[in-house]
């Protein structure tokens, strides 16, 4: 509850700061944003909108699995903002002292099953996955892989490890169904929406599904802390939320 109030306050403040900031002193410079693979389309759009509002700004996007991004930052990769698919990834950075302030939740997501167009294996629910030959999941330590394990456990479905092909991030995992021969993949709802006609969606019952939380934070030691904060605020703003909603994310 406290968190919800905090986020709400942050949003109100952000709404107040973005517009005047653009009018008072133009932001300029360059920042690198490390974002989870599932944020590929949405953050590309967010960066574009941010740039439209601040023409002198350049936003470099670095996509990958949240666990990889955290490892990169811990080894000193020069990133200014981290947007991860779960909070525990960002918590690792908090514990290490790499982030400026506590992470803010800016979106939520849930999982869905992607199968080949036309659903040739006739998958109706998560229970059908046990009989398929090859399921694509994210790596065991990647957030979407952890979430998938949770969902499978909640549904009481056990899949043999020898039938699971692990992707390095959620886009690679989805790719195994889209271009490869995997029979099904468990990915985020936003990813199946983005894939459109390339796949057929099978929903996961909300009783066993998860509501994932995306966290965003500025990174300590950024060369352009002001710009980084401005971007974070933008993502948390009403305008930012509109863009995220358009891609199928759920309200934080």
């Amino acid at each position: 509850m406290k968190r919800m109030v905090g986020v709400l306050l942050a949003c109100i403040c952000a709404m107040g700061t973005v517009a005047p900031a653009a009018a008072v002193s133009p932001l300029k410079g360059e920042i690198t944003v490390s974002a989870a693979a599932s944020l590929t389309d949405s953050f590309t759009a967010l960066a574009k909108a941010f740039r439209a509002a601040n023409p002198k700004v350049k936003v470099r996007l670095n996509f990958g699995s949240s666990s990889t991004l955290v490892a990169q930052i811990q080894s000193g990769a020069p990133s200014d903002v981290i947007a991860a698919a779960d909070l525990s990834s960002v918590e690792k950075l908090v514990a290490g002292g790499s982030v400026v302030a506590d992470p803010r939740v800016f979106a939520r997501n849930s999982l869905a099953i992607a199968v080949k167009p036309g659903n040739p294996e006739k998958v109706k629910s998560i229970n059908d996955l046990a009989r398929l030959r090859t399921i694509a999941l994210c790596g065991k330590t990647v957030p979407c892989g952890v979430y998938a394990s949770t969902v499978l456990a909640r549904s009481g479905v056990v899949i043999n490890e020898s039938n699971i092909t692990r992707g390095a991030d959620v886009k690679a995992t989805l790719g195994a169904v889209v271009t490869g021969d995997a029979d099904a993949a468990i990915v985020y709802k936003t990813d199946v929406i983005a894939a459109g006609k390339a796949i057929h969606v099978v929903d996961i019952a909300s009783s066993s599904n998860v509501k994932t939380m995306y966290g965003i934070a500025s990174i300590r030691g950024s060369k352009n802390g002001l710009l980084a904060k401005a971007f974070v605020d933008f993502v948390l703003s009403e305008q930012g939320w509109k863009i995220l909603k358009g891609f199928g994310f759920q309200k934080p």
Partner: protein
Amino acid sequence: MSKAKVRDVASSTPGFVWVGAALGLAFLLLPLVGLVRRVAWRGLLGNLVEGPASEALRLSLVTSVIATCFVVLLGLPLAWVLARIAFKGRSLVRALVMLPMVLPPVVGGVALLGAYGKSNGLLGSTLYNLFGLQLTFSPLGVIVAEAFVALPFFVMAVESGLRSIEPKFEESAAVMGLSSTKRFSRVTLRLLAPALLAGTAVAWARALGEFGATITFAGNIEGRTQTTPLAVYLLLESDPEAAYALSLVLLVVCVGVLVAMRDRWMGRRS
């Protein structure tokens, strides 16, 4: 007694060549040293013997050896045709055979999907519909991917070896009374032995190290298609010590192969 230094114009080396060579060597050796530094020697054996690391090592060993056998069986006749039979378009065929060597491995993997993918591969869908055989996400698929990238290396070494065999040996054997099969087994193969060995060794090392085509075509299934390079990639985040340990194993194997070949793959006779 001091030996007088004999000056030899042909072997004198300009100064900048020494500098360039030293820089080049440092450029290559530094990462190797960096890798070895990261290995946790105390838990090394433990890391390798248990869990996904040992599975990956076992799988890599089995698939790379089978893939190499496959490469030799197909590569030898291919090298023969390229070396000995002059036909129209031979240069083009040779270029195509060498293609997997310069193609980015992931692109190779995508190409393999296009040919052998169950869903809509050229041959793959037929294989699946007729025999229920699925290469993707299977150890057989790993072997196919490894053989695909390793074949050009073998063919190159063996074709070059065949071309360097002077006709006089086989001619002399023919005059002595040996049929073409006997000439091949008793003379040609024995003359070809160093090139065959070098080609096999290089092909095996390449198969062992294959990543991009394997992960794209055969996927990443622990125990079934997660070869050592794939395991290193994934373990790097979850268990870095195991990743470094596996990397060390691959490094030692490759160094071993190169040392054992002792410049033979450069074409120098022992």
